[in-house]
């Protein structure tokens, strides 16, 4: 297990969260929580009213692009992203890995050149993809994943991960599991809002979390947090997102069902 803590602080009552954790090895949410519990020893428990526990409408169109091996236009509420997958391709010599596939992720912003923020997202998506794709089945090859931001509805990162998952499904690359990402934020009144819309995000928040879970045991694959909230809230938010991820997995199932509907109907 590898974890990167950018910054970690423990105060008496508040558990300060400002870090990004990427798991290269999947492990149970429970153990993740234990792990965090070890880090903070004395935390008073908060009981929170969590209000908005909804996920916005999901829509997708698979194989939207005629040239890509797999592609999807995905919307989650007002957030729209497009993802494409080309692969397995011949890898460039510098990028070639002898034992597995090289995963290249390009995240394209709507305006301007990709900068540091985009590279950060690319890295998160890349590690997630490395986890879900059975990369060792195609050594010395590459897969090229491109994500195009089309409409910002507040939850670009989680929508991107979900779109990539759908595009990978569409491309037919062998996957170990599926992944569903859910974003939630803690607003200024300490309420947890699931899948916030752009207006809510712009109003300001205490913390924003994005979690990604796998489809087998709903274990945590990725956790990206920014902001500062009590630990209890973090735990609650994660559990909430975990529950919400079930809807996305159901949605995936329906999407695939639609794609191959003729066999079922």
């Amino acid at each position: 297990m590898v974890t990167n803590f950018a910054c970690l602080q423990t105060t008496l009552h508040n558990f300060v969260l400002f870090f990004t954790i990427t798991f290269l090895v999947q492990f149970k949410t429970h153990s993740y929580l234990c792990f965090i519990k070890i880090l903070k020893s004395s935390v008073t428990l908060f009981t929170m009213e969590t209000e908005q526990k909804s996920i916005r409408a999901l829509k997708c169109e698979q194989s939207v692009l005629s040239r890509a091996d797999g592609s999807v236009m995905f919307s989650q509420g007002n957030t729209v992203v497009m993802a494409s997958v080309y692969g397995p391709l011949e890898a460039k010599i510098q990028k070639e890995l002898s034992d597995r596939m090289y995963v290249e992720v390009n995240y394209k912003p709507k305006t301007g050149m990709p900068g540091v923020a985009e590279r950060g997202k690319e890295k998160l998506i890349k590690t997630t993809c490395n986890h879900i794709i059975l990369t060792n089945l195609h050594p010395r090859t590459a897969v090229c994943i491109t994500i195009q931001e089309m409409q910002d509805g507040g939850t670009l990162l989680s929508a991107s991960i979900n779109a990539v998952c759908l595009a990978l499904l569409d491309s037919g690359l062998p996957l170990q599991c599926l992944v569903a990402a859910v974003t939630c934020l803690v607003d200024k009144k300490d309420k947890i809002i699931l899948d916030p819309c752009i207006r809510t995000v712009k109003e300001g928040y205490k913390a924003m979390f994005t979690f990604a879970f796998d489809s087998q045991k709903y274990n945590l694959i990725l956790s990206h947090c920014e902001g500062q909230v009590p630990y209890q809230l973090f735990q609650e938010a994660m559990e909430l997102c975990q529950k919400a991820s079930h809807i996305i997995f159901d949605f995936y199932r329906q999407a695939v069902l639609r794609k191959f509907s003729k066999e079922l109907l």
Partner: protein
Amino acid sequence: MPVDSRRLQGPESAFSYTLLEKKDANAEESILSADLQKMLIDSNHVRKDKRKPTDARPLFLRTGIISQAKGSAYIEQGNTKLVCGVYGPREVQKKSDFRLNGQLFCEFKFAPFSCQKRRSHQQDNEELVLSGLLREALEAAVCLHHFPKAQVEVNIMVIENDGSPLAAALTCASLALASASIPMYDLVIGAAVRQLPKLLLLDPTKDEEWQPKLNHDENNSNLTVGFMPSMQQICAYVHEGVSNPEELEQMLKIVTEYCLKVQPVVQLCLKETVEKMLASEGENNDAE
């Protein structure tokens, strides 16, 4: 200039606060060289750091500080500190670069915090030229025909620049190459000297180094030399500023003399490196 999109950039209009320090620009520009000499050295011919004009700064050398590199070295010459890592010989990456002799790739980089003014992460023009000078100097010392079709990479990172970085880099690079067991004709020792109208200062610090300024029309210059002591050969020679050929001869003499003094120090460091290597090998053998 290509925009660096990999890093967060500071505001373009920012500049170093040191420029705001109280100093009379006019006064400084019009300082005559004689006054300049007085600024750098007192009446007893002692420099600001208590050295005599022909004294070099204390030297500290160590090898094997980058565990990932084939060979590495660290040098401290007064406050000038730099690290060198040597990688290879390995296959030439670009096939079109094929050459029968081995190739040297040198990268000379100042750390962003190493100078008074912040330096960019990307190599600037000065660093490129220093890389070229380093490469030309080392090419004369390394037995390139011993590794045909292969390349050796030499990376220099200046951690703190307090004058004479190229001289320190030459010594450090040759030590790193030797510790990486790259065959060489001789060690390269770098040395620098500052010329003032009536005086030569060996191994100048940042303040003592020659700066391009107006009205310094009299003999005033800076010289950096890479010298191979056993072979009695000069493999790097960079001179900036105004001098006569006779003065250059004098400067060269001082510098080569100093290089001959440094040679045993570098040799000693190298000897220790080899002994350590042998010892650790012996331990490994015992363990088996």
